[in-house]
């Protein structure tokens, strides 16, 4: 398919849904009124697509796994600690890092809307924002974990953090066994998005991904 065909396919008005038409109309209204610069909207989308994502959180977790002083600083004031890492996305106030331990597993939800540490993890996946997760995570977290294929020992405490204010929570998962001597870069590759939400674990070294 040529670039022209592709363009045509994406923007053929005859194929637009009612929602697409309404969204386009609103964008026209806002730009015509001088409220927003159209190019700035493009730039916002581009920034979301390129600057944020779980790679940011993975860097923070890998650093915490290798640097005890950083880990302590992260657990005390995550916004401040992440701010000291120049290569990671800029981060706003009120980021809270919560540590998984052999006795306690943390899981994050927003029952009221979709609050999520997007500077660390990117935009939330659809399931995080959808009714099944939002309704059940606080009442039946083990059942929700089972939906992800995750099971925990029955005596492990499960702590669910409902993001009801402007605090944002990042789970610090446990470092996988068999990674002694690994570099931060190597460790960051093991850190999954879901392990930082609390609905998964980091990858296991040597296991097929």
């Amino acid at each position, binding site marked *: 398919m040529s670039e022209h065909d592709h363009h045509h396919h994406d923007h053929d008005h005859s194929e637009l849904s009612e929602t697409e038409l309404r969204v386009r109309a609103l964008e026209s209204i806002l730009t015509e009124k*001088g409220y927003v610069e159209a190019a700035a909207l493009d730039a916002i989308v581009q920034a979301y697509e390129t600057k944020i994502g779980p790679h940011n959180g993975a860097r923070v977790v890998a650093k915490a796994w290798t640097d005890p002083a950083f880990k302590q600083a992260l657990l005390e004031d995550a916004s401040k600690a992440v701010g000291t890492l120049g290569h990671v996305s800029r981060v706003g106030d009120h980021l809270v890092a919560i540590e998984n331990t052999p006795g306690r597993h943390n899981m994050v939800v927003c029952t009221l809307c979709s609050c999520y540490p997007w500077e660390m993890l990117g935009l939330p996946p659809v399931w995080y924002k959808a009714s099944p997760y939002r309704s059940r995570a606080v009442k039946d977290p083990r059942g929700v974990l089972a939906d992800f294929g995750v099971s925990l020992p029955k005596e492990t405490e499960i702590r669910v953090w409902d993001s*009801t204010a402007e605090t944002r929570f990042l789970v610090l998962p446990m470092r996988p066994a068999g990674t002694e001597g690994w570099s931060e870069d190597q460790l960051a590759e093991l850190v999954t998005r879901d392990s930082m939400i609390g609905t998964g674990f980091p990858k296991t070294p040597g296991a097929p991904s």
Partner: protein
Amino acid sequence: MNGVHDMGGMDGFGKVVPELNEPMFHEEWESRVLAMVRAMGAAGAFDIDTSRFYRETLPPQVYLSSSYYKKWFLGLEALLLDKGYISKDDVASGHSVAPAKSLKHGKFSMADVERIMVRGKFGRAAPAPAKFKAGDRVRAKNIHPATHTRLPRYVRGHVGMVERDHGCHVFPDTVANDAGEQPQWLYTVVFDGRELWGPDSDPTIKVSIDAFEPYLEAA
């Protein structure tokens, strides 16, 4: 408000179904809606809690049957109409036919993009000393405001323990109501699963919310 958005503890929505290799946006228009919401908020048309309130007040059947970004779109359009930034005639014609309203922070332009990629600041100077401290037993008040609140129904009337103090923050219940920021102390309050869900609940579960001081009373 006791809206359908307040979903914690509801049954019947089925399993969580993660999508493998999920794209950031499923349709291009979703990205435009996200950008418009972020831009108009940053330009001063509304704050984050007001935008939440307009999604919460969508009719329940619309809320439940609309995709995430469809809800964002419907909430945005309703909010902009209500606050006079756009008119019904604008929407009907698909173009601006009515005069513009001035925005608190002016037109959103390229220079503003970097600023919005960091979350806004919600901490404020404390107007009064904190009433509670870590370790205090507190009850989430049995209150049912018809307007915006961030106190979920499933904790109301239940006793928990203050675990962390986050300082004073903008109060969503007033700021979304055009009643000002009225900063309040914010605490992480943790509840035992059995306190929330009864004696048959899994004894290993604990659930916390972040609660503003007016939501709490000593227990």
